[in-house]
Each structure stands twice: as C-alpha cells, then as structure tokens.
C-alpha cells in the first residue's frame, strides 16, 4: 500500500507530456523489459506483449489492457504493483516514468497501430493440448526392415539422420529381453529350449502372446502403475502405521492381466464407487486416490492433512493420468501451461467430497464362504418363519412392547478436556468422532452440564463412521474398541471442585464377548501384564486390566453398539450439575508409537431419569431401525429386526445357536482405503497460496478450458464419475499419449517425450512426435487395450534390434533416443531381486495376497533408526521368496535391498524412476541375505540337477541365470575360480559349514561361483 502511494505521488510530480506514442514510447519498454518472458520465444501466462491482437485480447489472469481504463488493465496493475497477482517484471520494478507512460498509453485508449508488432492473433496451441490424430506412415527406403507401423516412424528418422538400424538381436537375447520386459522374470532353461527349437516364423509372436497371457505380466506392469499410484503398505509421516491396502495392489495386477481397457482402468480408479451397482473390485480400485500419506502425529489438525492428501491426489492424477504438472496451480496460475488456479480447484472439487473411508474387503474365496454362511443363515431363518406362520404378528407385538419400554434418553452435550493429541470432532447428532493421533493408553474425560436432578442411568452408544477403520465403531486396525473402565463423576455447577465419583451398580451392553486374553503380540504391555477383554461388567469392575470389548469377530465386529450404566443413586444438584464421564482405555499397546490402540472411535452419551433403564437395552442397530417408521423400513432393516427378535424367542434356542455357530465361521477379510461419497457436499474454495486456512471464493467442479470439454450426464451437477469419464474421453489430448509414452519409456529406457510426468509446454520436444500420436490413437481405437500396444512394440523391428553398440554409434546416438539399437539397461530393483530368486529356483511364484516380510536388518525397524518400533516378523517359509512386488513397503523405512536399486518409497507419484549404478548396489547383491540364499540354492540345484560333469553343471547354472550358453573363456574363468575355492574349502582354509551351513566343500565352492554369476552386470541387465 505504501509502495502504491509512493508511485502515485511520484507519478504526479512528472510533467504530463503530450499524447503517448506506442512505437516511440511504449514498445521500447515492452521490448526491453517484458519480451524475454512474454515475447516470441516464450509466452508465460499465455501472454505475448509483442502481438497487438493478443494484448488486446488478454492473458490467463484477465484482461491485459482495457483501453481507456488503466485501473482495469492487468498490464498496468501488474507493473504498478497494485494487482493481487505478483508485480511485474519479475526481475525488478520498472522506473516510475515508464509505469506512468504505460498508464497514460492505456488511458489514452491504448492505441497500437495494426502494422506494428508480430502478426499473430492467437497463441500457438501446444501440441499436447490438441487431441492426437492418426498420422500418415512415413515413407521409408528400407521397407524390408519394417515389421509393423512403429518401424516406419523409427526408420524414417534413422534414415533422415543417415543411420542404419542395428541388426536383429540373437534369439536367446530376444527371448530373455522379452521375458524381462513382459513378465519381469528370466526364462527357464526349458522355456529357452522350447523357443530355440521352434524355428518357425511364428515362434517369436507366439512367445510374445504367451508372455502377455502370463499372470506375471500383471505383476511386472502393475508395479509400474503402483509407482504412479504411490502405493505403499504404511501411512508415512512420523507414525507410519501399517495399512492393509494390498487389495488395491492385487486389483491392479488382475486388471492388467485381464487387459481391462485403459479407459475403464482409469474410470474404476477415479470413480469406481460411483458406477451403478459398483462391485467390491470397483470400490477397491478407488484406492488409487487413497494411497496418499496420512499424518496421525500428535499435534495435527486432521483437516490440514486431509487437504495435504487432496493435493497429493491431484498431483497423482496429474502425473499418472494427465501427464501434466498441475500442482503448480495449487498456489497460483500455472506459469507456463494455460491452467489457472481457479481451474485447479475446479478439478479439486470433483475429488473433494469423499469420506476418508476404510472398508472391509474379502477375497473371492472369502466372498464365496460369506455367501454360503448367509445362505445357510437365511435357510434357518426361513425355516423358523415357516414353522411359526404368525411370526409377523409376534414380532410386531414384541416391537410395540420394546418401544414402550424405551425410556427417554437425553443426549449429553459433552466436551472432551485434556490434551492427549487425539482430535475430537463434534457431530450434528451429538456424537463425537475421534480422529488424528490415537493414543494407545489414555483416558478421555468428558464434561457436560446437566440440569436434571435425578440422573439414573447413562447410555454410551458406539457408532459407525466411514472414516473409522472398517467403519468402526472403534479405532483398532479392525475397527474394534475396548473400554477398560467407565466412570461417572458429578459436581454441583456452583462448585465444580466438589467432584465425586458416582457408584455404578449395574451395566448392560448389546454385546458381551467371551472372556479372552489380550493378544500381547498385537497389543504389547510394557511389563507383559496380562490383560483381559470380555463383557460389559469389565468396564465397571474398578480394574483397568479388564475391559469391555466390542469385538465378537469378523462379520459382526463393525456394528454399532451400546451400553447402559445404572447409577446406585439418582444424581443431580439444585442449580445443575457438572457431569464428568471418564472413558479409560488401557487395552492398546504400551508404546504410543507402536500404533496399536483400541480407542472408541465415535460415540454418543445420553442420560435418563427413568427408573427402569435396565430393561430396555436393545442392540444399537435395532434402535436405529426402530427409529424408522415400520412402513418405511428397507428389507435389510426388517431383516435386522428379525435377526434380533428371533434371539429373544425361547423356542428358537437351538436354531439361534446354529446361526451363532455359522457367524463364528465368518472369514477374517482385510481392509481397504477407498473413496466413498459424502451425502452432504463439501464446498470447495480457491485457496490463497494453497493455504487451507485462507479459503477464497467457492468454485464448482469443472475442467480446464484448454483441454477437452466436460460432458456431464444430464440431470445432475457433474460429479467424480463425469470427471473420470472426461479423463478418458476420446478427445482428451493427453491421457492416451501419457500412457503410451510411459510404456515406451519402460521398454526403451526413455519416453518418446523424455519427461513422462509432463507433456506440457515446458516438456522437451518428443523424439518421434508422430509415433507418439500414432500409438495414442492406436490405443484408443483398439478399445484402449494395453496389451495391444505391448504386442506392437515387442513385435516391432525397432525393439528386436541388437543392443550392441559401436563407438561411432555411441557418438551419434549416445542415449539411443533415435532407437538406433536395441535397449540395454539395468532392470528395476524388484526385477534385480526376482532374477536371483528365479534363477536359483527359490522363487515362490504365487500371485497376490498380503505383503510379505523377507529378511531385513532388524535394527532398521527399531529406534533410533525408525521413529517408532515397527513389526517386521521375517517370513521363514516360502513367503520369504515371493516376488519383490509383494515385499511390505514402509514409507519411512524402505526395504533396503530395493531402496538401493532406486525403487520409489511411495511418498508421491513417480512415473519415471532414476537408474543409478552404485557400490551400495554391489554390496547388496554380494552380501545381502536373500541374494546369498539364492547363490546357495542355485549351487545346490546345480549339483542336484545340473548333470555330472563340471562343464555340464557350469552350463546349467549359467543358463539358469543368463539364458545363453557360456563361452569358453567364461567357463574357464568360472571353473578355475571353482577349483581355487574348492581347494580352500577342502583344505580347511575356508569353513564350508560356516558359509553354507553344511560341511560340504562342493556345495560351498559352487556357491561361490553361483554368487559371482548372480552378481554379473549382464545378470541384472536387459540386453
């Protein structure tokens, strides 16, 4: 403000000259101070100050010039420093006289002779913002080389550069290359023999089809997508709590394996939950958006970190799907691409209406088992109904009496005191939702003022909430809660210090699990003290080692619950009472950083003055049904009522017991973070500088103007599903290009556009722009089949070139951007590991399931390396040798053997891995436990199955690792090492037992040779 007045003051002192002449007075200022960023070469903010039509038209931030009105002209406001946007020029302010010249020029009508300046009326649209069309195939000379259309593009460029393509790679190399590329596993000796024996023309295409049909294809390419989806098995941040989200990982693998069309693949992940009759799979797919980190450290505001997660979701959609860096516009208009901040928040609004939901999920087997259980229960219930034809009348009569017996409960408007770090969100229905940090051992103290003088009972309702684990009602990882003690205190309002504990003489609850010992492995106690869970009496027994638990096992664990606590004497004071309720929770782990709690998740407290509160206890879910008028109940609600009522009928004791038995066989299931739309729309605001504490105007869901138009289904406001469909619309300019570019990147090391995460105006020019468009159109016109693209690439002549390189070629095409040879580079971290497992025969090829814990140094998971103690129970069975895809991924403590090979940790979306070559990698493959076990297993297998002569054995082991045959020099080198080391083991110079656990010099010596083979550059390289 001060600066503004100074400028004006100064300006007033200047002699107001005669009319400003654009060419003489203004243009030189533009040329000197603005043209660098807003000229011919670049047009930041979509503004070109050397072109009349564009200046008079306007840039991203609004009308650049309004003739006659400097104060309405962004150009003037910006140079004068009075705009809400940053002052221009960026490099330093203009002299006051020049600012005045510009002001005067505008005030005088902004006269700009038509003949002056660049003759462009619109900015050139960046190639990536124009929907791709299928280009003509370029004409090439060497048509004999061409195997499919891809080769036209590659060869045309090579011919233009005066280069010839490399010869075709030999068949063994091709075989291993295709295997590593498509399945991420090397071929077995049998597979190699079969392929090499098939001399027909069709052998190679057949191989590609076989590999694309392998379930391992989904694992290998799923990992790529999981990078973009920032998949990890823990929350990140300080607590870095484990999370069960592997259903999403498996969904990705399966979706790719069945070649789910890429448009549906995206729609399911962005809005699968909103599809009509959404399946569990489609809901699980929305885990893509939910892979964001979650901060539950003590001092957080949950809304702040929900917003952080929202920004992360936007970033992931930008990088993974759009191939655009949209997160710049979180704080301000995108500097380079024509994306405004408002448009960013319009996209944001599509994603902003979800619960942070966590739901129970079941595998296919479990779903079948559940269906069977429900069928059997249904049959028993049908039989009951059949045998008691008057059941409807009896149930209605029961309902009437139950309803009559209900006392009037008044909700306590209680507030939580103290500073445990857990955050309490007060809900409209009088309940309290606990979020954020979850202390493992604490007391929630609630106070409420009550005027009644005869409080006879308190009711505690534990409610479901989509934002709790599996819907709650508790906060344990299963959504269960345990209440160690329930205490009621009262003081006169006039004298709050005179607080006295009230005697509770009786309690009842709608669930009373059998007495059980708390699992110390999950909920450790510092002194290993035995703790018990069971029925409601444990909440009022004065003993904190016992607790009322809501957990009656899977299937019914996540239902709402209630308990009633009856006071010995009616409580209350003249002038009102301050009631204090203490919810004591001592049944979590002892260490607040081990993340294991059994806190109440959402609850509501009420009181009654009625005398007979003890006869009225019904399950919470029955209360919920009773609140609905009988004629408005859904069949499910009717069922809920019957489910309960039948248990009150003595004659059905036997049937009830059978049903109870069936429930106990309910499968455990797992959980998944998913999108779940809220009933009440959250309003989205533009956030000043991206600060959630500075909301500006509200924005409606919408898409950026520079991309394709949104076609919402008629009849409603556009929602997330419309957005998902927009992303994969046929006229979307970047979606198809982005994914084919990434597939290309994976095969050839670099994408056709090098910056796979950004195809925007700042991206380097594509190496083969027509090929990119051709592939994008090819994908869309083939029902978005990704396998089709894989098939095209792998059967192209370009892909099948030898990767051998000459110095001349290295000079002309150092990074192989011209595809003048086949790709050759080190495989990804996961595949480095998988090759060792596969070659050694240790690999457990099982697909899917919970993450596994292969050996890893224990200290990494304990303080002071890890913030909190983490559980890493090393697998001992063959789970130890699952593909690296399944290794448990802690964000804050990445698995070291993968971390060394550049695998991303899931903090944010990654669509382009770096590829390093370091001594730490050498140490890992030389000395890490699993690599050593692989060496030993390979040696053992070689001795057992590799023939009898040393030559045979060496060839066998070599082929297991490298597929090809060793040459004579290689054999010599390895066999002479074998000989040297065998002598040392035999002579006792080395201890075989210490090395391989067995006093076998033969095994030990072969293990040393196997170890060398597994460490070769070629072993971990796609040749």
């Amino acid at each position, binding site marked *: 403000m001060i600066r503004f007045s100074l400028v004006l003051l100064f300006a007033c002192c200047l002699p107001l000259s005669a009319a400003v002449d654009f060419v003489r007075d203004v243009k030189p200022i533009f040329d000197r101070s603005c043209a660098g960023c807003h000229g011919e070469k670049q047009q930041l903010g979509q503004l070109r100050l050397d072109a009349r039509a564009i200046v008079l038209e306007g840039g991203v931030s609004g009308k650049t010039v309004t003739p006659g009105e400097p104060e309405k002209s962004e150009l003037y406001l910006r140079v004068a420093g009075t705009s809400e946007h940053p002052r221009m020029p960026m490099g330093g302010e203009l002299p006051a006289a020049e600012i005045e010249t510009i002001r005067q020029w505008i005030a005088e009508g902004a006269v700009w002779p038509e003949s002056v300046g660049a003759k462009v009326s619109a900015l050139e649209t960046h190639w990536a913002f124009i929907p791709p069309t299928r280009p003509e195939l370029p004409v090439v000379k060497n048509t004999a080389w061409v195997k499919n259309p891809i080769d036209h593009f590659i060869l045309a460029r090579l011919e233009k550069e005066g280069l010839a393509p490399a010869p075709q790679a030999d068949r063994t190399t091709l075989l291993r290359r295709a295997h590593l590329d498509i399945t991420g596993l090397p071929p077995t000796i049998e597979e190699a023999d079969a392929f090499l024996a098939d001399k027909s023309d069709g052998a190679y295409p057949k191989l590609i089809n076989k590999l694309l049909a392998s379930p391992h294809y989904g694992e290998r390419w799923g990992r790529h997508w999981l990078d973009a989806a920032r998949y990890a098995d823990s929350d990140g941040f300080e607590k870095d709590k484990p999370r069960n989200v592997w259903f999403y990982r498996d969904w990705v693998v399966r979706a790719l394996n069945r070649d789910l069309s890429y448009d549906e693949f995206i729609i399911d992940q962005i809005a699968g939950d909103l599809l009509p009759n959404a399946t569990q799979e489609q809901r699980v797919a929305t885990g893509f958006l939910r892979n964001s980190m979650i901060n539950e450290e003590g001092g957080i505001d949950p809304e702040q970190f929900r917003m952080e997660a929202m920004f992360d979701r936007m970033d992931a959609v930008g990088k993974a799907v759009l191939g655009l860096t949209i997160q710049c516009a979180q704080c301000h208009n995108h500097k380079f691409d024509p994306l405004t901040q408002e448009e960013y928040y319009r996209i944001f609004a599509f994603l902003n209406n979800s619960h942070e939901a966590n739901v129970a999920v079941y595998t296919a087997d479990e779903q079948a088992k559940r269906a069977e259980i429900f069928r059997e229960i249904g049959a028993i219930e049908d039989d009951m109904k059949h045998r008691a034809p008057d059941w409807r009348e009896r149930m209605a009569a029961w309902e009437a009496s139950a309803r009559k017996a209900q006392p009037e409960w008044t909700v306590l408007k209680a507030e939580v005191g103290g500073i445990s770090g857990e955050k309490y969100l007060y809900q409209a229905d009088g309940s309290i939702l606990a979020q954020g940090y979850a202390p493992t051992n604490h007391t929630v103290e609630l106070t409420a003022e009550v005027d009644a003088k005869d409080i006879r009972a308190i009711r505690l309702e534990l409610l479901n909430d989509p934002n709790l684990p599996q819907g709650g009602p508790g906060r344990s990882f299963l959504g269960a809660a345990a209440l160690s003690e329930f205490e009621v205190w009262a003081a006169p309002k006039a004298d709050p210090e005179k607080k006295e504990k009230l005697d509770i003489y009786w309690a009842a609850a709608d669930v009373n699990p059998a007495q059980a010992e708390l699992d110390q492995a999950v909920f450790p106690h510092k002194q290993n003290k035995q703790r018990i869970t069971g029925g409601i009496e444990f909440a009022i027994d004065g003993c904190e080692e016992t607790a009322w638990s809501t957990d009656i096992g899977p299937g019914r664990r996540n239902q709402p619950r209630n308990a009633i606590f009856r006071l010995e004497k009616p409580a209350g004071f003249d002038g009102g009472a301050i009631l204090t309720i203490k919810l004591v929770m001592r049944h979590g782990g002892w260490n607040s950083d081990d993340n294991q709690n059994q806190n109440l998740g959402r609850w509501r407290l009420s009181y009654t003055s009625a005398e007979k509160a003890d006869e009225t206890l019904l399950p919470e879910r029955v209360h919920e049904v009773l609140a609905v008028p009988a004629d408005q109940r859904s069949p499910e609600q009717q069922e809920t009522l019957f489910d309960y009522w039948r248990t009150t009928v003595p004659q059905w004791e036997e049937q009830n017991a059978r049903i109870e038995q069936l429930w106990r066989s309910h499968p455990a299931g797992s959980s998944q973070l998913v999108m779940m739309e809220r009933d009440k729309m959250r309003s989205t605001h533009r956030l000043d500088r991206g600060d959630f504490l500075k909301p500006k105007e509200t924005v409606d869901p919408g898409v950026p103007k520079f991309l394709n138009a949104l076609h919402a289904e008629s009849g409603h406001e556009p929602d997330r599903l419309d957005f998902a469909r927009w992303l994969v619309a046929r006229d979307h300019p970047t979606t198809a290009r982005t994914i084919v570019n990434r597939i290309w990147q994976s095969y050839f090391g670099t994408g056709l556009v090098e*910056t796979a995460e950004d195809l925007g105006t700042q991206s380097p020019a594509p190496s083969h722009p027509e090929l990119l468009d051709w592939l994008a159109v090819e994908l869309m016109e083939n029902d978005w089949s990704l396998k089709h693209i894989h098939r095209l690439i792998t059967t192209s002549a370009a892909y099948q070139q030898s990767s051998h390189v000459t110095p001349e070629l290295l000079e002309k095409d150092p990074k192989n951007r011209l595809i003048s040879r086949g790709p050759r580079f080190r495989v990804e971290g996961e595949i480095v590991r998988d090759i060792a497992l596969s070659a050694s025969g240790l690999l457990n090829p099982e697909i899917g399931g919970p993450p596994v814990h292969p050996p890893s140094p224990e200290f990494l998971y304990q303080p002071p390396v890890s913030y909190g103690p983490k559980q890493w129970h090393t697998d001992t069975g063959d789970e130890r040798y699952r593909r690296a895809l399944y290794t448990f991924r802690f*964000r804050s403590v990445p698995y070291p053997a993968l971390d060394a090979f550049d695998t991303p940790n899931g903090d944010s979306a990654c669509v382009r891995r770096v590829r390093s*070559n*370091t001594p730490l990698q*050498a*140490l890992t493959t030389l000395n890490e436990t699993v690599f050593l076990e692989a060496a030993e297993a390979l040696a053992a297998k070689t001795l057992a199955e590799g023939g009898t002569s040393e030559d045979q054995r060496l060839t066998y082991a070599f082929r297991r690792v490298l597929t090809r045959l060793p040459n004579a020099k290689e054999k010599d080198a390895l066999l002479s090492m074998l000989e040297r080391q065998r002598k040392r083991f035999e002579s006792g110079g080395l201890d075989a037992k210490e*090395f391989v656990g067995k006093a076998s010099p033969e095994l*030990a010596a072969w293990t040393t040779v196997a170890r060398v083979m597994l460490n070769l550059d070629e072993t971990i390289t796609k040749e």
Partner: protein
Amino acid sequence: MQTGRKIARRWFLEQCGVGLGSIALGHLMREQGYAVAADNPLAPKQPQFAPKAKRVIYLFMAGGPSHLELFDNKPKLAEYDGQLPPEGLLEGYRAAFINPNSKLLGPKFKFARYGQSGAELSELLPYLSEVVDDIAIVKGMSTDAFNHAPGQILMNTGSQQFGRPSFGAWTTYGLGSESSDLPGFIVFSSGKKGPSGGNSNWGSGFLPTVYSGVQFRSSGDPVLYLSNPPGVDDELQRDSLDTLRELNQMRLDTVGDPEIATRINSFEMAFRMQASAPELMDISSEPEHILQMYGAEPGKPSFANNCILARRLVEKGVRFVQLFHEAWDQHGSLVKDLTGNCHDTDQACAALVKDLKQRGLLEDTLVIWGGEFGRTPMVQGGNDGRDHHPNAFTMWFAGGGIKPGITLGESDDLGFNVVEDKVHVHDMHATLLHLLGFDHKKLTYRFQGRDFRLTDVHGELVPKLMA
C-alpha cells in the same frame, strides 16, 4: 585396444555416470592407464563463486528443543509465570496439543553470559559456553510447520510436502564429493527414536539417487551389507571380484555398453569401502584426550561417538554429514529430559567445534545445530512441559564463513514472536547455500517442466550472519 575398452574410455571421459566417489574412479582409471573421468555425478565441482564452506556437519536436534530453556533468556516470562498470554498475541495461532490460551510458564533454568561476546546461555550448556566466541547464535529463527514430520521435512528440504531433495542432497548435487570410497552424504541417528520425517529427511527427491544420504551406524556394520557374509574371507571376496571383473570385462568387450565399465568400478569401490569404512568407523584409534573431550566411549553407540565420526568423515572428504538426535519433544518432563539431553549432547557439540578448530577445519566446515521448531512459552500439562512452537526459536551455526561470536535476532519478551532479525527456514537455506558458493536462486534442477530449488520461491540472504 578392443572396441569395448575404447568406448568405455571415451564414455568415462565424456559422460560416465558413476555412483560413489569420483576420485576412486580416477584412481581406477589411472591404474589402468586411462585418463581421469571428467564428468560424473559425484565428481567434485566448483560452485558458482568462491565458497567459504566446503563441507557441512548438521547436528539435527529433532523434536523441537526449547529455546526458552537453552538460549533465549526471558526474565519477563518468569514474571508472567502462571498468567494467561496477553490478548491479541494468539490471534490466528494454532498449537499442536494445547489450547493456545494456556498459562505462561517461566523458564526453568538460569542463564549467564559467557565469552568475550557475552553470549547468553543456559546453565544446561556448560560446554557450549566454552566455545560461544566461535559460534553464532540465531534467536530469530522461524518456520511454518508446527508438527514434527512436516517441520523436519521443511527444515531439511525447504518444503512441507514430501518428495523434495534434502539440503544434503542439494549440497552434494552442487559440489559433488571429495571422498574416494565413501558416500558424499552420510547420516547417523541417535537418541530415543528415529526422526519423525523418516528417510525423506535425507532423500534425494527428484535428484538422482546418488545424492541421497546414506545411513551409517556406529555399531555393527557401518553400512548395510558391508561385511563379507559368514564364511567368506577377504581372499574369497577378492577372488570373486576378480572373476566378476574378468567376466564383466569380457561382456564389455562384446556389447560395448560403457555402463558395464561403471558397474566394474562400482564393485571395486564397494570392495575398497569394505576395507576402509570399518577402519574409519573405529574410533578406538582416537587418542584418549580426544575421546574425553567428546565424552565418547568406543563401542558404545552415542551422539558423542557420532560427533567424532562426523569429524573423521569430513576429514576423509565426505561432503555432508548429518546427525539426527531425536530427543527434544518435551511436552512433559521438561526439566528432567532437557537435563538429560544436554548431558548427552552438550559436551560433544562443543568438542566438535573445538576439535575442528584445532585441526584448522572449522574455517571451511559449516556446523549447524538446531531442530524443526521451538517450544511454546505457554505450559503444557501441569508445570513441566511445552508444546511445539514455530514462530520463534534458536539455532546456532559455526565455521564455514559464519560470523563467530555473535548473537543475532531477538524474540519478544515471551519468546513468542521474532521482533528483530527474523530468519526464516528459507532464509537460512539461502544463506547456507551462499556460504557453500551458490546463489540459491541459481542452484536449480529441472523437473516436471520447471526449475526447482531448495528455497522454492523464497529465501533472503542474512548478511549479518556471514563473516
């Protein structure tokens, strides 16, 4: 000469991407009669202008040390003990745990002035008082984050959002490493826990992974998988590496990919690291008086041991050593825990400054001490705890072009807001990069279509802090 070798040589000369240690590569190449590599990601590089600091030791006091008990003497706060903060002070203020409108808590320890500079320090820091004339105490620090993980990530990467390169990564990216067989950026962890921000505190973000910090331990294997497996002696390891090298060389001759030469080099460097790292990490070779000066005991992991190791590592050319000591989150037990923490760290911090100085290393080694934020003047709990506080806190710096013997900046009477010479995290980064020879606006890396830098779009130099 065979084709492969020729290519390898050219590649090394032109654009070889080698992992750790360019000098080592140089040795290797010289041994083989090749010219030295000119361009690899960790080759020592000249900064943009003559640097004052050539290396960094960053003592990261994770958890948020209380400036009010250690550095920032507030007699007024003592007077106001038990009263509510003045109206208006808390406007827009967010606290992590407490209701911000909680009673003020007077400082728990006595202060006195030390050295020629007369710097004020608490009685908890008797050793630091001996080196106050060598350090610069900055009482005007401020940050944007008041939760641990975001605060640490901001302090280490310049952003609260995960995924950006750390200060150490930027430094090694800008300067490379002088070390022949050690990583350029090494990290230690001591204290009660690991740092809240986890590995991302020393991550390379979108920079090449060779710039990320490598965790070392002061007991057991200093680096993961460093030791030979049981039953493997050096002779076997050497034989294995010779065979590997022979086979890799044959492959290089056949396919011509210079990356194979890099791989050969990586294995050789790994082998040398196997020999050199344990030796380097064995502090029992330090003279008794040095061990005593730090309060270190060989074989017993401690912050003090890590301080000696930091010195040993920078002597070997390691560019950036960062020691995380997560112990400073005193929501309660303020008096007891601070006393304990200072007992564990004060002596070693001061010894490090002294030791670097006596070796002539201090003048071009930047030493940084500080956490992610300070603590509230308001009480948490009864009368022995403080909550997280981002508005004002204290750090100290030494060596490497830092003006010694000064106390810069001032907070208000309550230690709540900075009233003079405020230094935001971004300003600190800008200044430290300047000392390392970089204009923080020009040390950039292009990613996602834009040039990223440690200071994002912020950061002003703090000339008063520089000698």
